[in-house]
């Protein structure tokens, strides 16, 4: 008989082992999707390049907050220190790159600035992360149903590997219940969910998704980020969480430079699409600074 589970997900997920001195990419992951979603990136990296995902969900206070109402009894700084401890324990002294997706990028940036100067990476790669600056920190009330429902449809599509295309006009100005009906119709049409999916079930899924977003929003709201002491490399998805916003607010936090690249896909599918992984792999591989793809300097 298998024992009852007493703990949540693990922090460390080694998706590819390093070999031939090519180094390791350490990627800070904030949950929402399983850490294994980064396998596409692991496959896109040159053979011998390691990929280790550091999942914030391994921190119980963070993980459970998405399942219990969205209030985490922790801080960005504490998460950064926890991930920093894991990173220090894994560091073999070889080449390494640090990256973070979404809220994981915020924690990764905090982590770099809390490292001793001699231990910092030569750059930080941010995957569709929104900057934790006053201009981009939002109160919960700013996250209105049409915005959240649009993101939820994107997330659901990524989770189910099927398109969930909802006309934004159908969500605009409407409430959550009406919006969920449109999301369910689109999910059923695209094969992402069975047409007989009960509304109560979809409501539960949506509520958990929103609690995860609120958790990250509430962690970011009181946090004051230090400007980066290393160059930042930002990869935005074609369908980012903030469409049309090229830098996602990172300019004021990047006195040592901000490169901006674009990947195919949306905020979620940029992690699972091979064409997006090819873009990201070129940017994150250790000691590859000289071979990086052309970028826009900000």
């Amino acid at each position, binding site marked *: 008989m298998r024992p009852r589970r007493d703990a949540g997900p693990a922090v460390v997920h080694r998706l590819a082992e390093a070999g031939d001195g090519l180094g390791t990419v350490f990627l800070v992951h904030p949950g929402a999707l399983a850490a294994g979603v980064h396998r596409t990136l692991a496959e896109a990296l040159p053979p011998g390049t390691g990929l280790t995902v550091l999942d914030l969900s391994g921190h119980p206070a963070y993980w459970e907050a998405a399942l219990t109402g969205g209030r985490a009894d922790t801080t960005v700084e504490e998460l950064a220190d926890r991930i920093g401890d894991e990173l220090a324990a894994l560091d073999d002294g070889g080449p390494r790159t640090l990256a973070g997706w979404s809220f994981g990028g915020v924690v990764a940036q905090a982590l770099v600035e809390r490292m001793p100067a001699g231990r910092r990476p030569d750059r930080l790669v941010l995957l569709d992360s929104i900057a934790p600056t006053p201009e981009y920190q939002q109160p919960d009330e700013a996250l209105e149903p049409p915005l959240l429902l649009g993101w939820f449809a994107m997330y659901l599509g990524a989770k189910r590997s099927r398109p969930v295309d909802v006309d934004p006009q159908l969500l605009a100005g409407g409430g959550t219940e009406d919006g969920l009906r449109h999301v369910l119709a689109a999910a059923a049409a695209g094969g992402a969910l069975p047409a007989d999916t009960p509304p109560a079930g979809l*409501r539960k899924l949506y509520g958990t998704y929103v609690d995860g977003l609120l958790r990250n929003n509430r962690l970011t709201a009181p946090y004051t980020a230090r400007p980066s002491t290393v160059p930042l490399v930002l990869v935005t998805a074609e369908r980012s969480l903030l469409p049309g916003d090229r830098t996602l607010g990172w300019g004021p936090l990047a006195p040592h430079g901000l490169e901006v690249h674009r990947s195919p896909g949306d905020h979620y599918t940029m992690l699972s699409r091979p064409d997006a992984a090819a873009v990201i792999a070129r940017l994150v591989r250790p000691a590859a600074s000289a071979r990086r793809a052309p970028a826009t300097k900000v």
Partner: protein
Amino acid sequence: MPVVTAVEAQQWLIEKIAHRLGVPSEDVPPETYFDELDLDSTEALILAGEMENWLGFELGTTTLWYHPSIKDLAEYIAEESAARAGENHAASA
């Protein structure tokens, strides 16, 4: 709200899971662990929401994690249902 027994909860779970998987109920043993089923976390949460609707009370989302088999979860639901019925009875006495 009537008390849900472990047998009733187990039967409900097996029927719903069998329907979702497109297999007969007999093919879903109560000892099955959720992570052995071809259900991803999306489907598990949808199932949890449907179950809450049926039970008439909210289950913590971590419940599925900490009670990882059908039988284990059914027993927990029965305990929770009885405890809530007891609270309601005391409140109305």
